[in-house]
C-alpha cells in the first residue's frame, strides 16, 4: 500500500512539474489549442457553408481536431524534456518507471482535457450544434478520450522523441493505433448530442474505457524500456 502511495506521489510530482513548466512557459498548450481551433475553422471552409451538413459532421470534425492537436501536445511534453536534457535525469531517478509513465500520462491527459474542453464550445458556436444540453455524457467522453490519447501518446512520444524524423513518425505510428478511440469517441459524441435514441452511448463509453485501461497497462509496462536507452 505504501509503495502504491509513494508511486502516486511521484507521478503527481512529475505531472505537477509538467504543468508548472507549461504555466510558466505558456508555449505548448495555448498554441496547440489555437491550432486545433484553426483546424475546425478550416473544416468549415472545406465542407462549405451548408450549416446542416456541418452540424452533421461536427462530432467527427471535433475529434479529428482533438487528435491533431493532441499529437502536438504529447510530442511537446516530451520534446521540452529532451531539449533540456531532462529525459536522461528522469531515467536516472531511482523511481519506479511506471510512476514516471503515470506522471507523464497524467500531464498529457490534463493538457488533452483542456484542449477538448475548450474545443467543445468552439464546435458548438462554429457549427451550430447544441452541445450544452448533453454536457454530462460529453464530459465523460472527452475525459475518457483524453486519457486514452495521453496513454498511447506518452508511450509513443517517449519512443520517438530522440529519433530522426520524429515529427512524421509520431503521427504515422499513433494515428492507426488511436483509430478505435476516434471511432468510439465520435460515436459516443453523436449519441450524446442526439440524446442517445438507440441506447448505444454506454457501449461506446465502455469501449473507450477499455481502450484506456489496455493502453495504460501497455504503456506502463513498456515505458521503462524506452527510458533505459
Amino acid at each position: 500500500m505504501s509503495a502504491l502511495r509513494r508511486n502516486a506521489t511521484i507521478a503527481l510530482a512529475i505531472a505537477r512539474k509538467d504543468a508548472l513548466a507549461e504555466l510558466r512557459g505558456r508555449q505548448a498548450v495555448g498554441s496547440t489549442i489555437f491550432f486545433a481551433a484553426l483546424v475546425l475553422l478550416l473544416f468549415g471552409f472545406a465542407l462549405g457553408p451548408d450549416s446542416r451538413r456541418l452540424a452533421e459532421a461536427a462530432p467527427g470534425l471535433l475529434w479529428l481536431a482533438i487528435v491533431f492537436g493532441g499529437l502536438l501536445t504529447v510530442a511537446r511534453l516530451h520534446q521540452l524534456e529532451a531539449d533540456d536534457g531532462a529525459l536522461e535525469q528522469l531515467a536516472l531517478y531511482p523511481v519506479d518507471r511506471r510512476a514516471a509513465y503515470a506522471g507523464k500520462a497524467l500531464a498529457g491527459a490534463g493538457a488533452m482535457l483542456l484542449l477538448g474542453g475548450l474545443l467543445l464550445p468552439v464546435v458548438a458556436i462554429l457549427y451550430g450544434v447544441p452541445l450544452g444540453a448533453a454536457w454530462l455524457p460529453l464530459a465523460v467522453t472527452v475525459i475518457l478520450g483524453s486519457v486514452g490519447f495521453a496513454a498511447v501518446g506518452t508511450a509513443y512520444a517517449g519512443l520517438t522523441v530522440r529519433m530522426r524524423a520524429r515529427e512524421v513518425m509520431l503521427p504515422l505510428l499513433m494515428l492507426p493505433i488511436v483509430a478505435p478511440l476516434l471511432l468510439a469517441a465520435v460515436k459516443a459524441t453523436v449519441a450524446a448530442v442526439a440524446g442517445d435514441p438507440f441506447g448505444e452511448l454506454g457501449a461506446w463509453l465502455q469501449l473507450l474505457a477499455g481502450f484506456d485501461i489496455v493502453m495504460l497497462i501497455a504503456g506502463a509496462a513498456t515505458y521503462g524500456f524506452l527510458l533505459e536507452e
Partner: protein
Amino acid sequence: MKTRILGFAALLAVLAATVNGLFVVPADLNQGDAQRIMYVHVASAWLAYLSFGVTAMAGIGYLVRRDLRLDAIALAGAEVGVMFTAFAIWGGMMWGRPVWGVFWQWEDPRLTTTALLLALYAGYLLFRRLTDDPHRRAARAAVVGLIAAIDIPIVHFSVIWWRGLHQGPTIGDPGKILTPSAPPLFVLALMSMLAAFTLVWSYLMIRRYQLARTEWQIEEHGRLGRISAARRSFSTESVSEEAAP
C-alpha cells in the same frame, strides 16, 4: 540447401492448390468464379495475423532476453505479414467488386480492420529504418510491435460495433462461407491453399531471417572496421607526436 528444398516444395504446393482451386473445385452457385478468390484471400489473411503474432512474441522475447536473433524474427514477421496483408486486401477488393459492386465496402469490418493493420505494420517497418543502433532499434521496435498487436483486437471490435450498432448485418460476409453448410470440397480447397501458403510463409520467414542476420553482420563488420581504423589513426598520431619533440 534445406531452405531451397522448402522453397521448391512451397512452389509446387501453391501450384497444386491453385490448379485445384481454379479447375477442380466447382464454382459457387451464387457468386460464380469470383468466389474462388476466397481461397487465396482467406489464407493470406490468416497468415498475416500469424505473422504479426510472431512479431509481437519475438518482440517480447527480445525485451526479456536481449537477443538480436529474436529481433530478426520480429522483423521477418512484420515484413512477411505486411506482404500477406496487402495481398489479402487486394484479394478482398477483387472479390468485392463483382460480389458487392464496389472495391471498398466501409461496412465490412474485416476490410477496414485489415486496412488499419497494414497501416500499423507499414509504420512499424518505416519506424525500424530510422534507428541505427541495433539494440536500440530492437527495443523500440519491440514496444511498437507489442502495442500494435494489443491494438488489433480493439480495432476489430470497434469496427464490428461501428457497423453492428448502426445498422443490420451486410450480405456476403466472407465468414459465412466457412459455416458448416459450406460444401466440404470448398473447405478442403481452402485448407490445401492454406497449407501451401503456410509453406511459402515458412520459406519467406526463414529467408528474411537469414537476410536480417547477414545485414546485421555486415553492419557489425563495418562498425568494427571503423573502430579499428580510428584506433590505427590514433596510434599513428601518438607515434608522430612522440617523434616530434
